Structures are given as structure tokens and as C-alpha cells.
């Protein structure tokens, strides 16, 4: 296509938008709603994920061993654990180290009492491994494996915290996919109608174009341009809203709902926009083009 033709098609597409302003606004509003919801869900999910990663770095699994196991046997079990793919990091805490930590934490100011156990460490059989996983979702499976390893007496893991995070993450994900799916269909339908109106209003013009020898692509492009602009606008508005509202909402939640949101970690908006900007723009443009393409295909017999 020549530059003149491209400009002509863009001009015609913009004229169509102006001619059917109400339908255009309805279409833009629906795409805006769809992309906005998508963006909010994305922000929630990505921050939950980020919080989980933070939790994963701090919450570990502790493994204790049967009484009377030698250091070498414990070392062998440690090697088995270390070979597992799920394990990101593991630290060995001997019985002596365990007593030292306990004394520092709980017997400060009662050093005489601690000294009484100097020759008889009550935690001598409490040697353990502190294990951190790559992914908290693997915790349940990993714990059940650990419990079956010969020599392992007890496994301590914060299954409620991990399970709760995973459940919340999944629930938000499923509900959002449903809502976004419905809004997506409504958006495509509305744009389909807007473009059908434009085609109907220009029936004579299109017939003349066909009869004087305009190519299919020349006739169809303005309508696709119209859908593209509607999609772009429908994506730009919610992205702008998210950009300006994100920091304010987090600030508000931190100051007014600190109990509920104290344990959450939030990514900066710049980090979120790195992915959200191209994905939301592609979503808006995709909806716009899909709506106009289906309409052009159905109503524009060229």
C-alpha cells in the first residue's frame, strides 16, 4: 500500500468513528471495562505472587530425626534432601547449635540455669535441617515425601500459610478469568455492531467503490482501522487509570487496613507496567480488530 492509501484508510476509519460516536463510545467503554478488570486482576495476582515469593524466602520446613541417629546418618539424609529439585536452600542445625539458639532466645538473664545443662544438652537429639523450597506450591508433596524418609522423626511446615496463599491465588484467578471472558465477548459483540452500523451507513459508497475497481483490502481497511482505534483507546484509558491509581490505592490500604494488608508485599508500578502495558494494549487492539474483522467478514460482501 502507498502512503497516500494508508493515510486515506486511516482518515476514513477516523471519520467512521466520528459518524457513529455513540456506538464508538459504547464500544470504547466496554473494552475499557474489560481491560481495566484484566489490569486489576493482573495487579492482584502479580502482587500475590510477589508476596508468595517473599514468604517462600522466609518460611521454611524443619526436619527432625530419630533419637540416636549418628551425625553421619543425618548427613546421608541431608544429601538425599539436597538432591531434590524443589529445594532452593538448606541449613543444618546440630543439637549444640539448637541449644545455643534456644538459650539465647529464652534463657537470657538466666545464664546460671543454662550453665546447669552445659554437660547435658537437653536438645542433643534435636539436630535438624531448615529447608527452603523454590516454589511454595510444592510444599505439601515435598513434606509427604520427607515423612517417609527412614530416620525422619518429625517435619514442621507452615501448611496453612502456604495453602491459604495458593487457594487465594487460584480463587482470584478463576473468578477473574470468568469475568474477563464475559466482558471480552460483550466487547467483541459491541464492536461487531458498531462496525456493522458503519458498513450499513456506507452501503452505496461501498458499492461504488466495488464497481469502480477498489480492491477488497482497500474497502475493508478503514473498518479495521476503526476497530483498531477503538481498541487502542479502550486500552489506553484503563492503563492510564491503573498508572495513576495504583500507588494511591496501596497507600490507602497500607494506612487504613494495615492489619489485613501488613503481610502483603507490593511491586512498584514501573515493574507492573513492563508486562501490563504491552499485554493490555494487545488485548484492547485484539478485541477491536476481532470485532471489526468478524463484522467486515459477515456484512461486507466485496
Amino acid at each position: 500500500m502507498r502512503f497516500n492509501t494508508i493515510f486515506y484508510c486511516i482518515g476514513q476509519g477516523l471519520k467512521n468513528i466520528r459518524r457513529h460516536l455513540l456506538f464508538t463510545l459504547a464500544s470504547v467503554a466496554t473494552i475499557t471495562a474489560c481491560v481495566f478488570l484484566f489490569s486489576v486482576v493482573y495487579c492482584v495476582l502479580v502482587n500475590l505472587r510477589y508476596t508468595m515469593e517473599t514468604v517462600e524466602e522466609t518460611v521454611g520446613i524443619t526436619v527432625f530425626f530419630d533419637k540416636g541417629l549418628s551425625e553421619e546418618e543425618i548427613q546421608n539424609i541431608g544429601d538425599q534432601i539436597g538432591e531434590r529439585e524443589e529445594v532452593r536452600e538448606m541449613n543444618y542445625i546440630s543439637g549444640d547449635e539448637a541449644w545455643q539458639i534456644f538459650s539465647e532466645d529464652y534463657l537470657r538473664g538466666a545464664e546460671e540455669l543454662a550453665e546447669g545443662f552445659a554437660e547435658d544438652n537437653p536438645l542433643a537429639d534435636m539436630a535438624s535441617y531448615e529447608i527452603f523450597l523454590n516454589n511454595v506450591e510444592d510444599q505439601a508433596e515435598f513434606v509427604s515425601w520427607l515423612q517417609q524418609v527412614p530416620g525422619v522423626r518429625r517435619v514442621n511446615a507452615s501448611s496453612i500459610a502456604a495453602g491459604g496463599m495458593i487457594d487465594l491465588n487460584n480463587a482470584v484467578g478463576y473468578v477473574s478469568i470468568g469475568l474477563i471472558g464475559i466482558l471480552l465477548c460483550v466487547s467483541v459483540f459491541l464492536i461487531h455492531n458498531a462496525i456493522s452500523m458503519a458498513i450499513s451507513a456506507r452501503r452505496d459508497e461501498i458499492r461504488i467503490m466495488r464497481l469502480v475497481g477498489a480492491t477488497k483490502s482497500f474497502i475493508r481497511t478503514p473498518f479495521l482501522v476503526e476497530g483498531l482505534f477503538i481498541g487502542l483507546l479502550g486500552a489506553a484509558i484503563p492503563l492510564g487509570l491503573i498508572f495513576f491509581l495504583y500507588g494511591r490505592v496501596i497507600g490507602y490500604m497500607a494506612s487504613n487496613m494495615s492489619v489485613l494488608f501488613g503481610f502483603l508485599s507490593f511491586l512498584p508500578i514501573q515493574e507492573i507496567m513492563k508486562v501490563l502495558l504491552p499485554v493490555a494494549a494487545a488485548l484492547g487492539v485484539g478485541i477491536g480488530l476481532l470485532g471489526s474483522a468478524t463484522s467486515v467478514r459477515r456484512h461486507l460482501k466485496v
Partner: protein
Amino acid sequence: MIYFENVSKTFGKNVKAVRNLSLHIERGEFVFVMGDSGSGKSTLIRLLLKEIEPTEGRIIVDGEELTGMKRRRVPYYRRKLGVVFQDFKLLKDRNVYENVAFAQRVVVTPSRQIQKDVPRILTRVGLSAKYKAFPGELSGGEQQRVAIARALVNQPDILLCDEPTGNLDANNAWEVMQLLEEINAGGTTVVVVTHSREIVERMGKRVIVMNRGDMVDDRQINGSEE
């Protein structure tokens, strides 16, 4: 230039719009296709424009066979044709100049060429002074002349006119026919569909008469121009 070989067109199951039509129109000829409503004369134009396909037979225009022509070739074939309708089909939101230029824009003619061609063709149809007027400000005859200018601006080999005088009074109709004759004199093949016996007899050209899908007559008429 135009060949119809045993062409039939049936709409639905039983409506036979054209039946076993064979005819040949030479390059540079001026031909009337005459007949009552439903005689199949407009179907002939639509077949030539490749808006519809024949049910049987072959149509060959300027060496190109229309039946089986690839869809992407159709726009380029149509550029060899100009078409004029009874109801003019002008774009009401554009002035005379823009209506004519439109036919060139949509076939991607360079702007400089459009600026040269449109005034030339408007002068030829006698509307150079009204290039800024909108269709609603023109008489029926003037509107039809704009439509003719639009049909001619891409310099087609063939001009197809479907009842071009149907909406015009006698004087305007006669002016339009004289303009078509001038265009024909310049070498363009002109096919005019009409039901006006008076115009056909005054013009004195070849006339093909259709009746219920059959060609019932094909003869040269001696004109009686005033």
C-alpha cells in the same frame, strides 16, 4: 470486445432472468439494450460487472473470460468498465469534485493525477463551473452528468449505463444521450439499458431487444435526430 455465448441466468429455482443469450458487441460500438421491466436487461449489466455469475454459458470481455475469473482479479477487470445508474448514486456529503475524485482515490491514483483528471473530465461533461456544488444543489440532468464524469474519469474501455435517463425529463434525457454519443465518438464502447423507445429511435443505434429473458431482436435503427 464483449461476447455472450449461450449465457443463461436463473435466480432461485425457476426465475429465468436471461435465457441462452448469444451476442457480440464490437469495440467502439454504441448499443442499446431495450425491454420492459423483468426482461433481463439489467441482469445483463450485472453479469458484465461480474456482480453475479451466469448459470450457464461464457462471457468474454476484452479477451478476459469472466466465468472462473479469480476473485482478486475482479477489481482490476472492473477498472476497464465505467458504470452509470438511473438514481445516479452520488455521495451526498461530498461536492462534485470529490464525487468524481472518489473514483480515482479508491483505485489509488496519485493525487497529482487526480488534480489533472477531475477538472478535465468536469469540463468535458459541462460542469467545470459547478465543481464545488453538492448533489442536492444540482438538477437531475446535472447529477447524471456528474455520475458520467465519475464513470469516465478512470478512462474505461466500456461504459455501462443502466437506465441513465430514467429519472430525467425529456430535455435533460436528450442532453445526457448526446453526451454519451460524444463519449462513444472518442472510442469508448457504450452499452445503454433503457426502456425508452423514443430515445432509441431518435439516437439511431444498434438495439438489442429483450423479452422475459430472451433476446427477441438485434438490429440497427436509422436515427431521427433533431
